[in-house]
């Protein structure tokens, strides 16, 4: 007796070419096979989209668990951890007590990266005002963001467990502090695929002085197949590694080689039953399309002057502003997850390159205008409703002046217990604020939100039940939210 599912040959092919992608998931072939085994109607499974899918494309768009609020995500990752106290979370008490010894209750049992002894409290040197109909309170350092606060939900009570950059960034991206798990973008493209046939589903853009501390682990696929890893688009050289044909290889020559490769692969396919050859043929075709679509995408020259003015973009530059504009262009093209990293928010105050007085305003200048422009631009194109925009770093900063080695510069140490992030766009109730910290912006006193909650919420907005997006690895079903995660319902429409 045989228990193989009876399927048509073409269905089998689909199953095989995608065997690594779906057999172990709640979506896809595993489920299909069972329903088949049971002789049940495939169409009865709401997650089953197999009938219409492409034979070989693991990135094909897939249905979500339930109707989504947003289709895509732009995540503006502020690497280095911006100071919530100087940007979003105004604390009059802290202002009043500026320069005084830090109260004992904030220090006992606490571990800092660099602070030693009894540090002094540090009020923000910046003015805060209320903006928009919602009256959201923002620092003078964010003049542009202040004009779009009514589209934004601020979460002032985010917390993490990590207080060093690399693990905290990796935690914020993968739900686990040690490298090796898939990142949020990988999970999403694994779960939902992408609507663009010519571009990767998960694109990463970097600006700032350095790559993020977590390195490529921040957008790694972990144990998911590597097709789901974030693809870094570069601003220097090839936007995608090896995108450009070698010198002397013209487009027509390349087309000719690809046709010949295809012919030879197809000839071979006739004698070999391995459907991986079909996948390879398809991947070469997509590579060819990427060679056209990526440079076209990266070329922002043709954008009107008004757009450049709005974002503060300068074609040819490697900047956060340019990346914001690219993010919009990627989302327009149906890319599922675009993640920007801007490195440099690590404002310890060792010297004027990383202090609150000079370096923080510089970072805000680099990012504020473009972040606001992105929201406005998405809105005017009707894309904001279907795009979730997330802004935030990997942790917050202390209410105390760090004063490492008796530094004379003001700066703040790492602070994992409370910080601010914001979300805007599809499914987000604009003009809301969730969560509250104490008088020092130090501990959360209302509605704590942890990293898994952020992930659960983002997945929820994309129509995914975070507890059901899983992948089996080393004997266990893993998910982005690990064993936790609650959707932050207060910020949902």
């Amino acid at each position, binding site marked *: 007796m045989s*228990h*193989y*599912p009876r399927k048509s040959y073409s269905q089998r092919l689909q199953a095989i070419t995608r065997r*690594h992608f779906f*057999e172990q998931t709640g979506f896809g072939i595993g489920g299909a096979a069972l329903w088949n*085994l*049971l002789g049940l109607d495939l169409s009865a*499974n709401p997650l089953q989209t197999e009938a219409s899918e492409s034979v070989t494309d693991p990135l094909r768009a897939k249905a979500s668990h339930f109707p989504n609020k947003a289709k895509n995500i732009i995540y503006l990752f502020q690497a280095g951890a911006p100071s919530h106290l100087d940007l979003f979370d105004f604390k009059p008490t802290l202002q009043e007590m500026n320069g005084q010894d830090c109260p004992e209750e904030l220090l006992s049992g606490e*571990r800092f*990266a660099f602070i030693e002894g009894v540090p002094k409290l540090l009020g923000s*040197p910046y003015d805060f005002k209320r903006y928009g109909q919602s009256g959201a309170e923002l620092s003078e350092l964010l003049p542009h963001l202040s004009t779009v606060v009514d589209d934004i939900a601020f979460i002032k009570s985010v917390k993490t467990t990590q*207080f*060093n*950059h690399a*693990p905290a960034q990796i935690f914020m991206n993968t739900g686990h502090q040690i490298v090796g798990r898939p990142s949020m973008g990988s999970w999403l493209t694994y779960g939902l695929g992408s609507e663009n046939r010519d571009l*990767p589903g998960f694109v990463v853009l970097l600006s700032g*002085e*350095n*790559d993020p*501390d977590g390195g*490529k*682990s921040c957008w*790694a696929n972990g144990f998911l197949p*590597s097709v789901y*890893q974030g693809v870094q688009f570069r601003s220097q050289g090839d936007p*995608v*590694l*090896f*995108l*450009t044909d070698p*010198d*002397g*290889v013209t487009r027509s*020559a390349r087309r000719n080689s690809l046709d010949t*490769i295809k*012919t*030879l692969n197809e*000839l*071979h396919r006739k*004698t*070999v*039953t*391995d459907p*991986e050859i079909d996948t*390879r043929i398809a*991947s*070469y075709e997509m590579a060819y399309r990427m*060679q056209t679509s990526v440079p076209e995408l990266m070329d922002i020259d043709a954008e009107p002057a008004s757009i450049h003015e709005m974002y503060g973009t300068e074609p040819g530059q490697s900047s956060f502003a340019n990346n914001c504009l690219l993010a919009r262009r990627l989302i327009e093209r149906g890319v599922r997850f675009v993640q920007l990293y801007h490195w440099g928010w690590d404002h310890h105050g060792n*010297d004027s390159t990383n202090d609150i007085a*000079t370096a923080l305003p510089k970072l805000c200048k680099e990012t504020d205008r473009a972040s606001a422009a992105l929201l406005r631009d998405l809105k005017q194109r009707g894309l904001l409703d279907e795009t979730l925009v997330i802004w935030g770093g990997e942790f917050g900063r202390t209410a105390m002046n760090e004063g490492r080695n008796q530094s*004379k*510069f*003001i700066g703040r140490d*790492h602070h994992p217990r409370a910080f601010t992030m914001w979300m805007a766009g599809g499914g987000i109730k604009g003009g809301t604020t969730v969560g509250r910290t104490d008088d020092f912006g130090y501990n959360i006193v209302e509605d704590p939100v942890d990293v898994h909650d952020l992930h659960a919420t983002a997945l929820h907005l994309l129509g995914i039940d975070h*507890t059901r997006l*899983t992948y089996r690895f080393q*004997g*266990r*079903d893993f998910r982005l939210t*690990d064993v936790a995660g609650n959707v932050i319902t207060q910020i949902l429409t």
Partner: protein
Amino acid sequence: MTAALSDRFVPRLFHDSEKTHCNSVAWADSASVETVHILLNYSSMWRRTSCTLAIIFSASLILNALDHEHLLNSTWSGQVDAIEFNRDILPIFENSCTVCHGPAIQEAGLRLDTEIAVLVGGISGHTFIPGESEDSLLVKHLLGQNVPQMPFNETPLPPKTIALIRSWIDSSKLTSFKTTTSSENASHWAYVKPERPPLPEVHTTDWARNPIDRFVLSTLEGENLSPSPEASSATLLRRLTLDLTGLPPTVQELDAFLADSSPTAYEATVERLLASPHYGERWARPWLDLARYADTDGYEKDLPRTIWKYRDWVIKAFNDEMSFKQFTIEQIAGDMLPNPTIDQQIATGFHRNTLSNKEGGVDDEEARWETLVDRVNTTASVWLGSTIACAQCHTHKFDPFSHEEYYKLLAFFNNVDYEIEIPDGLAQGESWVVEPELTLPTSEQAIQRQVISEELDRLRNTLETNTPELDTAQYIWESEVNQADNTWTILTPIEHKSEGGATLTRLRDDSILASGLNPEADTYTITATTEFRGITGIRLELLEDTSLPANGPGRDEEGNFFLSKFDVLIAPIGSPRLSTTLSFTDVMTNDWQAGYEVTRALREAQEAGGWALSEKGSKTQGTTQSVFLPTSPFGFDVGTHITVRLAHNMKRASRNIGRFRLSITTDGDPTTIVQVPISLHSTLKTPLANRTTKEASELASVHRTLTPLLQPIRDRIQILETRLVDLEIPTAMIIRERELDDRPSARMRFRGTFTLPGRKVFADVPNVLHPFPDGQELNRLGLAHWLVDDDNPLVGRVTVNRLWENLFGRGLVETSEDFGTEGATPTHQNLLDWLAVEFVEGNWSPKKILRTIVTSSTYRQDSRGHEALQNRDPYNLLLARGPRFRVEAEMVRDIALSVSGLLNRKIGGPSVHPYQPDGVWNRPYSDDQWIMSDGIDRYRRGLYTFVRRTAPYPSMTTFDAPSREFTQARRINTNTPLQALTTLNDPVFFEAAQHLAARIFRETDPRATIAARIRHAFRLVLSREPNHNELNALTQFYRQELARLDSNLVSAGHIVSGGPNPGLSTTELAAWTMLSNVMLNLDETITKE
């Protein structure tokens, strides 16, 4: 039909039974009872497949909720089966008990979420006596007999449920905790030592070459399938050569093999390849994934490390046919062997491949702990195929490894040697863990090092010794320093301005004093004139003043300042238009604060930073000063107009200078005045006789670093130090055991959290597995022996399974990383067991097992398959055809290099840096650059490419190579457009195409036809002749490209640029290069078939 096969198609989607790590069973909730019945029926056919358990369980849950009686009456299975804990009892406990007696909370020390835990009981003792439900504590509690009724303060369980629990107790065959080895978990096939199974009878008698084939054929016959015919000789040779050496066969090897008609031609080839030194390289590769081998630390800065000697050791071990037993013992505990050899110590590098966290602010003990955790997890994964990592936080949910046992294993590693090092130049309080290293000079290097070191010692000694001659020189020098002030001429300011609005007043001594407003970031401009020519230095003196906070010289509350930029404009007097900015070569000072060196005041304005005084310096009596050294002496004949700008560019700081004075000199050495640090100024002024020994020696030491008398010695020291570095003596990272009288121990960690230490446990091995070998001590060496004990049920299977996986693309157990109850069931259990026993009894020789496998008929089958077979067995689980899959990342590279003739076949040595695009390495707080290796080191095999964990070599990652943070048992093959772009356009691969083109021409007759050349290309790349259609397609391509290139000579020139030219016309060579590029991109090229 075996259970294993159907297992492939059972979904994992409602796998996990417990809420913690799991999928919810959302859709199952709404499933009809009828569906559930189907599930149960399905599952009852195949117990013990991992999924089945979950299905039963999930279904039971639903039933449980619907109607307990239903379950009890067992209408679903038609009989009262033996009651199984996981299926029948656990759901009850989960529903009613585990909130208080579960993974999170264990009231009364009791947990009821695994069978073992139930059995062990809590503080009141065993929960039950098997077979005696009447007297069992558990039942008494459920009934409330003389003890509090459970669930506490909740509705008692229905009588029928209690009856079910009693039936379970009464039917239990368990007798004590130890007997759990016979429980459900323990009897999991993988925990039972394999025995050599009898060879199955088969109908076809002329196919099987060795026992492997008997097992495979028996399964096939059971499925009414026949094996595929043997693959063609050419295919077999390529398959075999790739499998055993990781390289494709050469054309000569191909011809020789095709020409050899002897019946043992194949076996002879197997022997030739197994003896190849490349065999070790090929088989080192998967081991290096397991060993998480990399060339960097992995965190933040991701600092480079030197551990390639370990890689060399692995390659050599494979080539030397070291038994896996010895291979294991040396890697786990080579240092503890009697009189360990250097190689045995290098082998311990296996566990030095852990990540190492040296980020600022890291807790060094926690960082060390993380490495121990990784060592435990890796050991379990590599040798036991077990996912023991779960037990770091809680007793393993599925496999029989307890939380406590985890820490007992960890204890074996807790006694390895380390030191806490406080690194130079880092912030106070920072430190990190340092483990031992071997320095491994060649004998020649050792001699050289000794010679150099001896001379260095002598010279340093000389440099530290005062002589009467030096004393005299010092006396003269001191007076020079003391007199140096006289060589300076004070500039009289004619103008002095504050941009920020401070009041600047010129005092009688021509110094400037600031008062009044103290703006947050002021800039002072002072102008003066001088008649001097040949000015060699400008001095800035910072003077104290009682009007300043803390007497100055700065205006911040501690009397300090922050000078961010020192600028000087000079112009001939009367010609302000000719003014130029003075450039400086250097600046020296006698006081500064770490991080605020005076050189920062010379940086470009937009660069941050500046000069500030040390805490001590700003409060001493001496004069703080800096001497700025112009690039060349200046001073106009007509006199010079000097404008000095002092910028204090620090917002909200108000750290401006309070009182200062400018002067100039024409002295030959303007720096004399600042040669003595301000901290020694008082010593300088103290007469010799009154100086303390310490003061005297400090000042003498400063003098000796400056005096021309010792310049030759200082020069020589510098040369020798450089030479020492240039010796490039290799090092190796090793493990070393600390002296210990007691058995190694470790503290448990509550829920795995480092900051929550629990009780101390001593080194021991998990209960469920074989006993610790007699005569071995409970230490790391004993552990090593235990891992490769003949009684270990796992290690043989796990190891042969990996060998199989590398050859067939899929292990007999697909989850080669997990042989636990959650792993995949073996497709051919008997075959696996046979191989495992064969391996252990065959002196643990991987080479022997490989020989057995590759000489089997199973391995030698054609891989092409046919549609019916493809339809029937798409994953080739039944092995009715040969393996066909895309080769691993390193082989993709090695094939291109090899067929083009570029490959450098050197074996071993430090990691190399082949071509890599710019910008791949861009790490915060790290300036490390990828510097391309010289010459032929660029063409080394893939396994020698430098692995930077946070920025791995792009083309390797694209082809699924891991970044080696953690042990990885298998790579999952993907097939993506980025791979296509890599082999099409990566300069490494295009260069290979250029060389392949030249080679095609070089190795064929100059008058050869296009067809003949294409044939040669095919033989080089694919080890076979092209068929008619393939030949036509490529011929046509070649002609089209040639025509195109003839009309586009520029394009042709670019295509061949940088490549070799064997004497072809540029256009022809370019066309062959394009054709070679096509060849290197065929599916077949990067596929083993």
